[in-house]
């Protein structure tokens, strides 16, 4: 279809290991098709590097359809690139112009140490989730479909919060490297539903404590996280987290 592709200059963060120093390296990539996804463009770069006998650029990816939360690149200073509610794998090269220089960096946060090149360790987010513990559920046969009534608006808010794919873009985009949007989404999805009520207070206290222990920053309400989130998680959840925390501290039996 299209004849000549784009000629791009890539400025990529290269770091041999977690302890290595790391630096930006420039790569010239010619004839890039506008139909490629951003990750396919990196695949092409890596194939060329392998042919040249150089180390390919390490980057995280898995499903490549925007739902797994593995891809995680800071592209020209924007988490997941310039599009809203789009993961890096769903970003396409038609968003760029011939002759562009594209800066690609890993997420930067103390709680996300670089493993290699553009790959960071995001298990700190997993530990925040596990700190939340289990949800009490009925064992045995599946309960009757309508025996537990959930108001539609609550169910929708819970589902919106549950859309979080845990990619860490909120942390990457926040000037404080705060994981407040992530934690608030995980707290909200449970707090809004009746199934999450028994452990409601304990969950928010433990998750916030774990979030602090991991070394994430504090929220200064700049809403950068909301704009960067590929799942469209709203900062309303952060306000809910603050309310849940206050309620748990003041009214619950936790920490007596």
């Amino acid at each position, binding site marked *: 279809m299209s004849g000549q592709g784009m000629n791009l200059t890539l400025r990529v963060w290269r770091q041999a290991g977690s302890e290595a120093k790391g630096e930006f390296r420039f790569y010239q990539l010619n004839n890039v098709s506008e139909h490629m996804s951003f990750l396919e463009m990196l695949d092409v770069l890596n194939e060329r590097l392998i042919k040249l006998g150089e180390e390919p650029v390490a980057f995280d990816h898995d499903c490549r359809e925007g739902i797994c939360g593995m891809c995680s690149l800071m592209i020209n200073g924007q988490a997941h690139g310039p599009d809203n509610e789009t993961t890096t794998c769903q970003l396409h090269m038609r968003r760029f112009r011939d002759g562009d220089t594209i800066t690609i960096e890993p997420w930067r946060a103390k709680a996300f140490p670089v493993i290699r090149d553009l790959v960071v360790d995001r298990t700190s987010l997993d530990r925040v989730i596990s700190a939340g513990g289990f949800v009490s559920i009925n064992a045995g046969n599946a309960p009757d479909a309508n025996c537990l009534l959930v108001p539609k608006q609550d169910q929708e808010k819970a589902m919106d919060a549950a859309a979080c794919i845990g990619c860490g873009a909120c942390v990457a985009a926040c000037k404080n490297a705060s994981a407040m949007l992530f934690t608030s989404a995980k707290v909200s999805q449970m707090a809004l539903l009746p199934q999450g009520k028994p452990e409601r207070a304990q969950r928010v206290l433990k998750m916030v404590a774990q979030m602090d222990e991991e070394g994430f920053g504090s929220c*200064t309400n700049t809403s950068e996280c909301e704009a960067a989130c590929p799942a469209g998680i709203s900062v309303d959840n952060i306000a809910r987290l603050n309310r849940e925390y206050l309620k748990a501290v003041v009214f619950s039996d936790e920490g007596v």
Partner: protein
Amino acid sequence: MNWLRCALSSSVGKKFLMAITGLLLCGFLVVHLAGNLLLFAGDEAYNAYAHKLHENENLLHVASTGLALIFFTHLYLAVSLTTENRIARGRGYAENQTKRENLISKVRPESWMLATGLGLLAYLLLHLADFTFHWRDVSHYQGLEPFDKAASLLTDPVTIIGYTAGFAFLFAHLSHGMSSAFQSLGLNHPKYNSLIKWGGIGFALALGLGNFSLVVWANL
């Protein structure tokens, strides 16, 4: 009381304290400005207000100690949170740009809260230097009634520049600080979110312009 210490030293708890102390300081600013606007009402009203305020020195000491406590809590949290947040980022980005849309201005007050806060601190020191500690030369208004003292001080060039800058910092600081405080306290709802946002900016503007009007008044 271990639970309270734990809660207040958590990231969410610190933001609570930040919000509450900030709102309390705003309350003080409203009362302080309301009193000072009596300058427009003339010397009799203003002097009566000033003398009445200083009649009960003990009460004034308790109030100013409480105010100082609130102020230093806010300041301490600002510095410690900013330090923690810098550490949480670690190595910064070579390039960084926002993905937020419909921004009112390119210069975003939320990115400059510590700077505008420290600017306010500098203004406050200048203000207290004249009215409380008498660090600057006081000979030209010594013995004057409060109304004449205020009118004389507000025509001093250092005061004019320092105060105008101070009120600009106040506007910038509160244009984010007010709505941010509500969010930190969990007060967020589609019914009143826009009221909080625009009300916060309006409040910041009212306090900034209200205070600045006194400088204008003195120099007319």
